[in-house]
């Protein structure tokens, strides 16, 4: 038998730097996360119907609510048309809805036995969660593109330069990741589809209603401050 070289030296001289070990661990984590996210995107490519059906709601809001409010001039927002002010809110709302129902996929995966396989693998749980969160981010980006396209078609003056696009992508993915993780927590706690749909719907409705309540109060604030500034007065139909 030939003498084998030792993998680990007795005095630890061959250990790499702590920073390199940390970097390698981070890259391993990132690649596992991306593998899970890739799985999510493939599921999406298989059946993109959900994207179309979930896109209807923000489209309706923009078309109906936006047109009605801006015609009525009920709320004026610091010189901007109401539709402009509404579009990012609708975008955020569509990101929320797409992400909050993302968690139901692990209930399906549990029924198919896939969750058990992933839990038995050495993948860190955080990578499983982040992968799902990134998958939710991709779906939300598709929704965001639809909402932006519709907004531009309706004549909303949103910024379209490169920094705005990059910022949009960052915040849409980040927000979707936050709400996807939240929905995973809900799914892990309630465990059945029926309970999940109930809780998820309630949570998103609360978040949106709260946001709309504050948004209307923001409009009051904005109109109030606009009225005190020495530039154009609020538009009065007449």
């Amino acid at each position, binding site marked *: 038998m030939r003498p084998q070289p030792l993998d680990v030296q007795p005095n630890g001289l061959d250990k790499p730097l702590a920073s390199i070990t940390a970097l390698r661990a981070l890259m391993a984590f990132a690649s596992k996360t991306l593998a899970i996210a890739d799985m999510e995107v493939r599921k999406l490519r298989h059946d993109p119907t959900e994207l179309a059906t979930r896109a209807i709601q923000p489209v309706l809001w923009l078309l109906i609510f936006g047109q009605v409010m801006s015609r009525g001039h009920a709320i004026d927002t610091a010189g901007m048309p109401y539709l402009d002010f509404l579009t*990012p809110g609708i975008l955020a709302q569509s990101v929320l809805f797409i992400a909050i129902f993302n968690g139901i996929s692990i209930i399906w995966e549990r029924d198919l036995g896939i969750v058990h396989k992933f839990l038995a693998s050495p993948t860190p749980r955080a990578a499983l969660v982040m992968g799902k969160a990134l998958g939710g981010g991709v779906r939300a980006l598709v929704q965001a593109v639809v909402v932006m396209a519709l907004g531009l078609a309706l004549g909303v003056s949103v910024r379209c330069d490169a920094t705005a696009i990059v910022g949009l992508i960052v915040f849409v993915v980040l*927000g979707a990741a*936050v709400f996807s993780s939240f929905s995973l927590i809900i*799914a892990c706690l309630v465990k059945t589809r029926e309970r999940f749909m109930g809780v998820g719907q309630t949570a998103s409705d609360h978040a949106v209603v709260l946001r709309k309540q504050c948004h209307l109060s923001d409009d009051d604030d904005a109109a109030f401050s606009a009225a005190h500034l020495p530039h154009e007065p609020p538009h009065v139909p007449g």
Partner: protein
Amino acid sequence: MMPRSLQLISHMNPLTYQVDALRIILLPQFPANQQFGLPMDFLVLAGALVVLVAISARLYPHIAQ
């Protein structure tokens, strides 16, 4: 303008920061009356993400029980 209790709850809702950030990014005239500013929005959302990922990673095996 808003009741204090509602304002507190809205400051704990990540959607508030998400909407504020999107408005700052997308509307050229908005940054004058922004609510929190882009760095604060990013920090809050990133912090919320870290906390929620930690909790859900902890809870993940629950789904299989």
